[in-house]
């Protein structure tokens, strides 16, 4: 890959350099600066045309703004750039233009020079024009792909006809397909301004074929112009191009919505999975489930700080940090890997504590357990506020989660892709635990018939405790994910708790496949309605209404665990 890239970058360089291939841009510029003949200077500068190395704009700009100086020794004239502050003697550090090294004296020591040692390098207006021509397209040939893409797009959107030649020259040389597309788009956009109708038509055909989202505004503008001129052929061609762009936009929006819906669904899924298990097993709706999310998210925040600057524990005056870790270290990027299991553990521990201290006394009174856990939720929220402040805390995404893939204009954020993938892994893991381990066997036994399981010697108390820990831990995991996507604050759990309950109720209590299906359908419906109505709130209300109506049709959810018992 590396060699390939290098070849790509070098290719234009070889193709565009008729002379002096052995010379570096620095050397060429140095030679031009020293040269006394204006024509030679221009030729040398123009020979840089089409090269993209970053040193070229740097040095040429310096030259134009009188920041390159000529340092005369007895034998030669050396062009230099000055840097650093002047010392007491008024001397500055000088860097040679031809090789970028510091200027040295005969003994090889860095040489500091003062004003009388050098004079400013001159430039004529013709030379400045030549420099500007080079500078104009320097980004077009930059080795950096993003820079090239941006340069092309800027030129295209300016619709400057004088740039056509440059772009056309660049088109066959460009090897990156994205930049190539952008070049074609830019050319077509510029040609829309052409006087000749045939050229305009050809440009429209090209734009139709490309169907880029960015061309839509230009096409619309062009359409109004064409309509003003009452030119039927142009109107038809523009409309056809616009239609093609809009179809493309619809496809992009549609797939983007599905993607966002899936990622929202995955979060709901991880959240609801925990709730479904605890509710299915114990008939306890845990109103503090949302706060377990916050526990997970705050754990992620703490781990991030431990990996970074360290944290201070106010009560004991302790500070906790890992020696040698800091915000810029490579290890900092891996805080999230450590945060995932820790957030699970932390939330599981809080959950087990909650179960032991409060919920275990209320198994016979499910409605009251709902109330007691609400009390817990209020207390926990206030504790978060006191510990971390009532504002949101900052959790940064590690590098490997903060980029995105753009496939055919659809943006796939890595964090969302990660969430979807991880949610599927968690579902698989939970399924494994429930069906392939002895704990899972016990959980299912207690779920189906608590009394009977107890008679067979299952320690239902202990199973309750572990299950509650598992459910809370899953909420903690969801919190770790949410810290990458949304805000982390004391009442973050409240934003998800209603959705989460809905997911469980729609899916059918204690039913894994039901929960999976309902989480994804709620996530998708929510995002789809947002996209269609362009209004998240109305979308949310409609989803809630849809769920209430759905329960008319299936009061016990998608999948019902059937039993002969009347009271459940």
């Amino acid at each position: 890959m590396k060699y390939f890239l290098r070849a790509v970058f070098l290719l234009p360089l070889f193709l565009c350099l008729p002379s002096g291939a052995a010379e570096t841009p620095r050397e060429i510029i140095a030679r031009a600066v020293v040269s006394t003949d204006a024509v030679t200077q221009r030729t040398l500068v123009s020979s840089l045309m089409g090269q993209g190395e970053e040193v070229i704009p740097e040095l040429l700009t310096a030259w134009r703004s009188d920041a390159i100086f000529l340092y005369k020794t007895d034998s030669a004239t050396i062009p230099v750039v000055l840097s650093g502050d002047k010392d007491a003697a008024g001397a500055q550090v000088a860097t040679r233009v031809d090789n970028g090294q510091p200027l040295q004296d005969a003994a090889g020591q860095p040489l500091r020079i003062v004003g009388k040692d050098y004079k400013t390098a001159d430039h004529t207006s013709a030379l400045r024009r030549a420099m500007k021509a080079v500078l104009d397209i320097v980004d077009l040939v930059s080795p950096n792909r993003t820079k090239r893409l941006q340069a092309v797009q800027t030129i295209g959107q300016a619709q400057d006809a004088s740039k056509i030649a440059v772009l056309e020259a660049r088109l066959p040389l460009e090897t990156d397909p994205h930049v190539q597309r952008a070049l074609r788009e830019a050319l077509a956009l510029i040609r829309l301004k052409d006087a000749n109708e045939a050229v305009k038509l050809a440009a429209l055909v090209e734009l139709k074929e490309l169907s880029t989202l960015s061309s839509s505004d230009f096409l619309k503008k062009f359409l109004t112009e064409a309509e003003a001129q009452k030119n039927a052929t142009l109107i038809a061609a523009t409309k056809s191009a616009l239609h093609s762009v809009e179809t493309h936009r619809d496809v992009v929006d549609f797939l983007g919505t599905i993607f966002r819906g899936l990622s929202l669904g995955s979060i709901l899924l991880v959240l609801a999975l925990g709730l479904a298990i605890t509710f299915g097993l114990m008939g306890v709706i845990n109103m503090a489930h949302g706060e377990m999310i916050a526990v997970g998210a705050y754990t992620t925040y703490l781990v991030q700080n431990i990996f970074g600057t360290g944290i201070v524990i106010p009560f004991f005056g302790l500070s906790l940090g890992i020696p040698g870790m800091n915000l810029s270290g490579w290890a900092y990027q891996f805080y999230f890997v450590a945060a995932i299991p820790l957030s699970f553990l932390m939330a599981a521990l809080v959950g087990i504590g909650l179960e032991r201290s409060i919920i275990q006394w209320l198994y016979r009174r499910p409605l009251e357990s709902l109330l007691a856990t609400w009390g817990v939720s209020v207390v926990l929220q206030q504790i978060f506020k006191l510990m971390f402040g009532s504002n949101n805390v900052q959790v940064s995404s590690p590098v490997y989660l903060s980029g995105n893939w753009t496939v055919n204009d659809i943006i796939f954020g890595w964090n969302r892709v990660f969430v979807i993938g991880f949610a599927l892994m968690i579902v698989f893991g939970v399924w494994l635990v429930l069906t392939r381990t002895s704990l899972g066997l016990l959980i299912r036994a207690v779920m189906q018939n608590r009394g009977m399981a107890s008679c067979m010697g299952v320690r239902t108390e202990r199973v309750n405790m572990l299950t509650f820990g598992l459910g809370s831990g899953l909420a903690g995991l969801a919190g770790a994910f949410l810290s990458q996507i949304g805000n982390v604050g004391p009442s973050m759990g409240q934003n998800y708790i209603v959705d989460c309950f809905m997911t469980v109720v729609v899916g059918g209590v204690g039913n894994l496949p039901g929960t999976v299906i309902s989480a994804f359908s709620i996530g998708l419906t929510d995002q789809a309605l947002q996209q269609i109505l362009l209004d998240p709130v109305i979308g949310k209300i409609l989803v809630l209404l849809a769920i209430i109506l759905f329960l008319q049709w299936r009061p016990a959810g998608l999948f019902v665990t059937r039993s002969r018992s009347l009271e459940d």
Partner: protein
Amino acid sequence: MSAASSRKIEFIAVAVIATFLIVGLPLLNAYGFVDNFWINVWGKYLCFALLAISVDLLWGYTGLLSLGQSMFFALGGYMLGMHLMLMIGEEGVYAKAGKNPELLPDFMVFLGHTFLPAFWRPFYSFGFSALMVVLVPGLLALAFGFLAFRSRIKGVYFSILTQALTYGAALLFFRNSMLMGGNNGFTDFKFILGSDLRTGATQRGLFIATAVTLLIVYLLIRWLSHTKFGLVQRAIRDGENRVLFSGYATAHFKLFIFTLSAAIASVGGALYVPQVGGINPSVMTPEKSLEAVVWVAVGGRGTLLGPILGAIVINALKTWATVRYPDYWLIILGGLFILVVLFLPGGLVSLPKRLAPLWKKFRAPAAPTASTPAV
């Protein structure tokens, strides 16, 4: 204590408290012994007591934990609030500045509306608004209850669904395009039925109205719980399937109770708005419903006095604690709630009964030992 004597005690207690609230406090206020501020605060408590009764009617008497009562409460408030907004008239900020020729509510002018939307117009009439206070929440409860009880949604599911409904309604009312004032809701009222809301006399009148309403609702529920209807209601709480199989259409009973309690909550809200001087969607959130449930649980559910006592005690505690310990108030509330649920399921009302054996033991420490030798 015999049943008759306990009824007598209850009658005397209620009569004394009611007389004090309806006659005593306003008189003290009129002669300057009680500050206007406290009349206002107590008026608020009594409105909350109405809300608590509506929760208790459902949860304590019928076994339905509705988390939607705050929505009905707020809806009632909004209905009367619409009337009060229109009564501001020329006293509004924009109207005074001469920028409001149509005399629209200020928030509408702020949002750039130039005429009054059609659904606002009938609210110029106080009678219509008062009717809507009962009708709108009542009809909403009827429709939702019909759907919910028809498909036999009960227990925790009912709670979750009512919570979702309230959440949705709050989201709706937070929007400006709903034309109900958005985030800020209604505020800055000036007149009710021609009298100035900013005077002590009007506030005193509202306080008396609230206390009378509370007494009427109390008597109504007391009467209802002693009829056969009340018996069926409690039977549904204790064993719905048995009632169903005995041939009672439990869904109809529940629907009636749900609608009635929505109307009670709504009346409470309508009385709350002019006394507090505003309403906004944050009153509508599910958390407020849960808070009302806390009042009932602390006071004692399934009793008549419990919710009233709970609403007053908790809110008085809140008034005190939010000033003294603003950071810890929620921890106190949550902790108190957990403790009550765990250790005092009967609430404050059950305290005398629970303390009675202890009191007896304290009075006659030797008595138990005297009776044991028989074993």
